[in-house]
């Protein structure tokens, strides 16, 4: 048993209001540089929808993630060691600018410099790459709130899991439904990007599991862009280096939550330490699709188990770290309550970002134009839900419907219990029956309610004390170097030279 600590993340999708504040906070700190304008280390997608870059889930085209041969071999789907060399010249799996969007700004000075005339001056859009006037054809959240329109949402790959009938029902205007899916780098425990990098520039920090790209070792071969199934590595076309979410490690190292967490309006984000057994990686991912969620859970360790604590100490994990693992909201959501699920675990990267699937679009039901939910037909709610469970299973459990249903039942049980507690419009026995069928207890429901609805900031973010990164990035303040390319380094200068 090789006990390691990992800073893990929970996004509670029922709480996300789709305001994109997280994306903007991230953009202002990290990606407002030349070459990085098109990057959204944090983005919020509307589901059903095609996402950013468009149809990033289409692994038949992008070949991201791992390929399991059904036995003992797990290799990057995009390349073998030998053919990676041929792909240096041209990588057939790499998305291009048009799969994202051409970054643009507006010619604001025209508003001020236009001569006096009969018509209002306009600020025309210009490309941030060529500087030429352009027609805006796409953006980072181009299909925002457009679920149900045939133009975008129909192309969502997760709809392939549904039958024709279900699809038609989903897209009936009356039954139109959607939810938001905020995405950052998953900081996977078994990352394909690290394995695919020819230069060996991408690495996982041992202490907290944050995946970083050493900008001095990156040579721009772009294999990582293809290998990451979540398309969360972006190629900076100006500096010739790849960049990705750094989980705001400079903020973490000063005890602050990452910018997207800190700015989250819906308070959907939780952060905490998970202890896991590194010896189980990557073997935990060598199981059939439907067993993947459970297999990933089996790699996590109980931070209160004396054997695990001893193993953690032996591995140099500090007492403070172990303590934050014991208080971790992530451990509660993932392991205690089993409410949080990984996104597209079938890519077999062991993502360390977990989502509590949304209940609202599932539970709500329209009846003659009115929104109802009927406690008596509790389980038929699931079957007649607006958003088919199969769709959620395609996103969060590699198609295993039972896993998602168990989560849904528990989430519903919490609602019913709290409604009964405050409104008293239901029969007590019926509520307790619901709790039993959802395999939960009033005590657990209270704890889930507390952590979901009224947690303090310090309950949502249980940050471990981190050592300051001893890399070049920490010696150069990103604030002071804004506007330079890359991580605040001039292309031809090194801070040490």
């Amino acid at each position, binding site marked *: 048993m090789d006990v390691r600590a990992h800073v893990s993340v929970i996004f509670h999708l029922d709480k996300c209001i789709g305001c994109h504040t997280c994306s903007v906070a991230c953009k202002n700190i990290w990606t407002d540089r030349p070459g990085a304008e098109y990057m959204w280390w944090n983005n919020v997608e509307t589901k059903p929808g095609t996402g950013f870059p468009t149809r990033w889930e289409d692994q038949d085209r992008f070949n991201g993630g791992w390929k399991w041969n059904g036995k003992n071999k797990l290799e990057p789907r995009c390349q073998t060691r030998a053919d990676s060399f041929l792909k240096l*010249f041209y990588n057939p799996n790499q998305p*291009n600018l048009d799969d994202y969007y051409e970054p643009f700004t507006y010619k604001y000075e025209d508003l001020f410099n236009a001569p006096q005339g009969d018509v209002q001056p306009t600020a025309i859009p210009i490309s941030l790459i060529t500087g030429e006037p352009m027609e805006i054809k796409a953006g980072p959240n181009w299909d925002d709130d457009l679920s149900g329109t045939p133009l975008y949402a129909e192309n969502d790959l997760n709809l392939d899991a549904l039958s024709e009938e279900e699809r038609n029902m989903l897209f009936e205007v009356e039954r139109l439904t959607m939810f938001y899916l905020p995405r950052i780098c998953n900081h996977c425990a078994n990352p394909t990007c690290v394995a695919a990098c020819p230069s*060996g520039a991408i690495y996982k*920090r041992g202490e907290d599991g944050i995946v970083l790209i050493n900008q001095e070792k990156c040579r*721009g071969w772009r294999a990582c862009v293809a290998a990451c199934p979540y398309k969360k590595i972006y190629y900076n076309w100006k500096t010739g280096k790849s960049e990705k979410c750094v989980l705001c490690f400079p903020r973490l190292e000063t005890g602050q939550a990452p910018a997207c967490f800190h700015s989250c309006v819906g308070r959907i984000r939780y952060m905490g330490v998970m202890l896991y057994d590194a010896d189980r990686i990557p073997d935990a991912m060598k199981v059939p699709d439907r067993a993947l969620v459970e297999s990933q859970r089996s790699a996590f360790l109980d931070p209160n188990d004396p054997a695990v604590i001893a193993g953690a100490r032996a591995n140099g994990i500090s007492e403070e770290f172990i303590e934050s693992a014991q208080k971790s909201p992530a451990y509660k959501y993932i392991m205690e309550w089993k409410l949080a699920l990984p996104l597209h675990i079938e890519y077999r990267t062991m993502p360390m970002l977990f989502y509590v699937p949304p209940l609202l679009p599932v539970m709500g039901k329209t009846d003659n134009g009115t929104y109802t939910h009927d406690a008596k037909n509790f389980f038929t709610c699931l079957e007649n839900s607006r958003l088919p469970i199969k769709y959620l299973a395609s996103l969060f459990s590699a198609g295993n419907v039972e896993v998602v249903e168990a989560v849904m039942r528990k989430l519903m049980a919490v609602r019913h219990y709290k409604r009964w507690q405050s409104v008293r419009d239901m029969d007590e026995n019926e509520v307790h029956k619901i709790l039993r069928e959802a395999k939960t207890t009033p005590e657990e429901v209270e704890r889930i309610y507390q952590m979901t609805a009224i947690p303090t900031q310090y309950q949502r973010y249980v940050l471990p004390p981190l050592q300051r990164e001893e890399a070049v990035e920490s010696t150069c303040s990103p604030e002071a170097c804004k506007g330079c390319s890359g991580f605040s380094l001039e292309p031809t200068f090194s801070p040490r030279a």
Partner: protein
Amino acid sequence: MIDLFLYIGLPYIAIIVAIIGCYRRAKYSKYSMTTRSSQFLEDKQLLWGSTPWHIGVIVVLLGHLIAFLLPQVWAAIVSVPWAVFVIETVGVAASILALAGLGTLIYRRVTSARIQAVTTTADLLVVALLFAQIVLGVLSATHFRYGASWSTGTVVPYLWSLLTLQPDMTYVTGFPMLFKLHLIGAWLFILLLPFTRLMHILAVPFQYIWRRPQIVIWNTARRRQQAVAATVAADSRREFLKGAVGVTGATGLLAIGVSNKALNYFKGAAADPEAESALLEKKLRRLELTAEERKYELERQRSSMILVAPYKDLDPLKGKYFIDYKMAPGLAFRGKDGLPVVISAKCTHLGCTVSSTLDENGRVMCPCHVSFFNIFTGQPEGGPAKDPLRKIDWALVDPTGKALITGVAGNKPEGTATPEELAACSLFITKPAPAAV
């Protein structure tokens, strides 16, 4: 003068600048080391540009490199006529492939607005030069056929003369202009290497073939130390395993040898009469040799005198080696007074044979542990030896067999002889008196 610069000055400048420049860029400006790929901005034409270009140019460059680095191998290959034909064909085909790819890349670079946004002056310079260089190369190859063959006697020795710091440009000064331009172009590329995107040639990620899939880096000192300790432990485990395998292997071999002997002992010797007789033959030969040696030794012991050398062969500075009655080496010199100096040559320290040459102080040296001995007294003069060299009794005998002068250790020589008589004498050593033994 201009030739001197182009074929000797320029190459050395280019190589020195390239080495220093590449080193500095790789060490102090790592951030600038990148392929600067533009596939992200435009990927349709790139497929038909970059792939043929890179494959073509790598084939051509490897051909050039092999011819230069392994001239003997290359010469052996091109001595076969059809091999030259194949090489020439492949070379020209690869060049044309590269040229087509490069043409596509240049077209793409000048027509795409997105690509122009990432194009620098250096990029344009490099592609223009590359295009010219390959055109020159193809023209040289087609106008002056069989370059694979004639270059082994011209360009290759020229390059090696540069490399061995004995530059000789006469190999190439007589070449046609077309080829000279191609050669100068090559030096220009080496010169430009550290200052342009060409530098990415040095970044080919060969380590990807063997590196482990996942990379974890620890930053905290405590954990790093532990990681080091774990590696050391793993290493020592590995060493232990290696040692164990080695010991087991050695024991196994030993066991096989011993058990074979033991088996033979109980089973009796091999029943192969031929091998047996060969073995006996060998034993006999050895016995015969030993007997001969002993016989020779006994003969010496029996005779009262042993010949060392004719008197005229003795030298005052260079001693004459002989074997004395004790079957030990001895040395004989001609002394200052014309009389022989005869002394044991067996060092009294550990028994090595001392050297036969006198130094200016009249000493000989034992080469084993640098002991010095005075040959006139036999006394050690420096070095680890403590005891003197033994003096040996001698006699000068004329051709009639009469001993004219005899010298016994510890006494003055007795007898006289004229120089003419001496010249005819021979030096013998005499059997020491039984009391002295």
